[in-house]
């Protein structure tokens, strides 16, 4: 059972950060849905609940998602539903049940870099950034690919952009973790293809994304199959209790092709 000795809910981010860095076994609380299932023994659990980080705001430069926003808030947010085809909010709607999504938070889902995350994949495709209290703003891609020092995720930032995104996942049963999830974003001058739950952490298929970007928008759907092959070949897939490597690769090809067709207006015959 997860236990901790002390609970604190400071009034400022600085106090939270000081507490976090005071001891190695101090931890920031998100929704606690995953922590609850662990056997971790922490000293102080630090709540962000007094910091007003439970809001989604549209600013001049993009959309700011507070770390303490629940998945359900993001799923039902009109701002996110209208953002580039609504793939980010659609991705959340298939995670467990409504009451689970009303507890789990966006910040914890991203900060923890879970391999099974359905939250990270569309955000990565949308070229999201993360704002960390101490280390400042960095792209989500950089955050995921580097080992970062202990910090507090304050906001997730989605840039203002005009493209269209699409998302698809596959599960053995409704409330299970995804055996694969895929997100594609396409605009006139930038395309991004991301695959997650392979079962490793979501990654950008860089070569496939670059190849898709280079194509004129009207030709992208016609090349979806070869781009899907490239995307799957450049990423690493593994087997686990949910699916075999081969099955994940097979699904990956189909989903990438399908989502490119969806974003670029082509037909998909799978």
């Amino acid at each position: 059972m997860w236990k901790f000795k002390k609970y604190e809910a400071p009034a400022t981010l600085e106090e939270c950060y000081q507490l976090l860095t005071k001891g190695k076994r101090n931890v920031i609380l998100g929704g606690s849905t995953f922590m609850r299932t662990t056997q971790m023994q922490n000293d102080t659990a630090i709540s962000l609940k007094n910091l007003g980080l439970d809001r989604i705001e549209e600013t001049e430069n993009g959309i700011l998602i507070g770390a303490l926003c629940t998945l359900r808030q993001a799923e039902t947010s009109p701002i996110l539903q209208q953002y580039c085809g609504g793939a980010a909010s659609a991705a959340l709607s298939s995670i467990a049940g409504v009451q689970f999504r009303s507890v789990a938070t966006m910040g914890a889902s991203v900060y923890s870099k879970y391999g099974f995350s359905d939250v990270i994949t569309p955000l990565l495709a949308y070229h999201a950034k993360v704002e960390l209290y101490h280390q400042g703003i960095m792209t989500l891609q950089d955050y995921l690919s580097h080992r970062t020092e202990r910090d507090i995720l304050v906001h997730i930032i989605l840039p203002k952009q005009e493209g269209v995104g699409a998302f698809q996942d596959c599960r053995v049963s409704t409330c299970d973790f995804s055996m694969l999830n895929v997100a594609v974003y396409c605009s006139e001058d930038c395309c991004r293809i991301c695959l997650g739950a392979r079962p490793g952490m979501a990654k950008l298929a860089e070569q496939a994304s670059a190849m898709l970007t280079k194509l004129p928008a009207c030709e992208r759907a016609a090349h979806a199959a070869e781009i899907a092959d490239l995307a799957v070949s450049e990423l690493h897939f593994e087997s686990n209790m949910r699916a075999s490597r081969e099955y994940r690769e097979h699904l990956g090809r189909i989903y990438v092709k399908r989502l490119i067709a969806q974003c670029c207006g082509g037909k998909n015959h799978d």
Partner: protein
Amino acid sequence: MDILLTVNNKTYKTAIEPYDNLLTALRKLGFKSVKQGCDTGMCGICTVWVNGKPVLSCSTLAAEATGKQITTLEGLPEEAEKFGSCLAAEGADQCGFCSPGLMMTVIAMKKELVNPTTEEIQTYLNGNLCRCTGYSGHLRAVEAYLKA
């Protein structure tokens, strides 16, 4: 540690361990409609409302719920009776262990969705597991309750 919890519009002072979940705190306060099921956040049996939204009380820290409005089935007697009658009429209540959690989610859904389709109802309720009924009775009862 001592905390103040506002449950069904009444404030209670209670002593908890810092890591206690809301489920434990509520049962300790006598709200026995809140059941422990899987204790991993998957079955929905422990559903209560926090600020009007259905949440898993097994996955919510009691300390995090201070200053918020908590509602359990004891706080919704009329709606519970209405939906309970529908469950009984449709033979959808067998062992009954999942019923309080299901009721909390269904009543929340009624507030949130306008004329939901069968698919929308099924999607909204997919976090509530039942090992007895096979769900078709539940669905009939929910549809009857929404029409009533």
